[in-house]
């Protein structure tokens, strides 16, 4: 039992550091060269969020998300960055939690929903920060792009999960 707890804690720590590195690394992917829109990114950290959600459960996933956002702000996002990532992240996580149980939606669908609601959350913060509703004008573009970024992260997730599944079976046997 105790070993399990240490296991879980270590896993959480690894996932947090992975998420931080991924969100830093994806700044170097020049996605804006292809889609010239504000705030476009691949959302690779969502792979980690999904992993946490599926392997560790809702509670740990939320903990990982919040710690990741706070650390991300400390390392360079700043307070306004924290508001964006936390609101987007929590909204995305909540929606993914709801659809995780749905047997009709695969990891791809969950990932797309996560990406879409992450953008919706960020636009909500932007409306609040700028004191202007006109920022909503960006949302349709962001939503359309999130279908593609969600597919991309979803397929990464599917690959990672497959490998993890077979490997843990080997370990357990």
């Amino acid at each position, binding site marked *: 039992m105790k070993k399990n707890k240490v296991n879980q804690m270590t896993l959480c720590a690894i996932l947090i550091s992975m998420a931080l590195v991924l969100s830093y690394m994806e700044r170097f992917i020049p996605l804006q060269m292809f889609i010239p829109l504000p705030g476009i990114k691949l959302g690779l950290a969502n792979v980690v969020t999904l992993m946490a959600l599926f392997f560790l459960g809702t509670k740990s996933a939320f903990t990982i998300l919040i710690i990741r956002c706070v650390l991300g702000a400390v390392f360079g996002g700043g307070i306004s960055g924290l508001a964006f990532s936390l609101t987007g992240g929590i909204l995305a996580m909540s929606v993914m939690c709801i659809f995780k149980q749905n*047997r009709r939606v*695969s990891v791809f669908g969950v990932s797309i929903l996560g990406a879409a609601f992450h953008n919706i959350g960020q636009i909500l913060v932007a409306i609040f920060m*700028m*004191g202007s509703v006109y920022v909503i004008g960006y949302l*349709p573009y962001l939503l359309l792009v999130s279908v593609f970024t969600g597919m991309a992260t979803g397929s990464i997730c599917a690959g990672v999960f497959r490998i993890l599944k077979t490997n843990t079976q080997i370990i357990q046997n």
Partner: protein
Amino acid sequence: MGKTKGMRLRFCIGDVLVIGFVVMLAILIGVVFWIKTGTEEGNLVVVYREGEKIRELSLDKNTEIFIENSYTNKLVVKDKKVAIVESDCPGMDCVHSGWISGKGRSLVCLPNRVEIRIEGEVDSEVDFIVR
């Protein structure tokens, strides 16, 4: 690990519905927004900093101004269009937004907390009112 029974890894019909939902939502918001803004002519450029109106410009007069806050944006009005052509903010999303015109359109520089919005008519454009 291993609690992965409730998860599907293959793309399935539910995912198509999810994509459909997101695309429909995008189109819906886009259409509503399009109808509300941008279809009318407007030539008043209003500069907001931290949500506060700091400057008004006419879209009919070619000008260049600098907007200072945490960063500096260079705003150019040219040929009835407006753009942020230079900025030292990270990301430079505002510069990538390009040239805008039409009432209700806006340029946003989030790091600098600046919004440039095109609003209705400039009063000076009204030469006289006949009653």
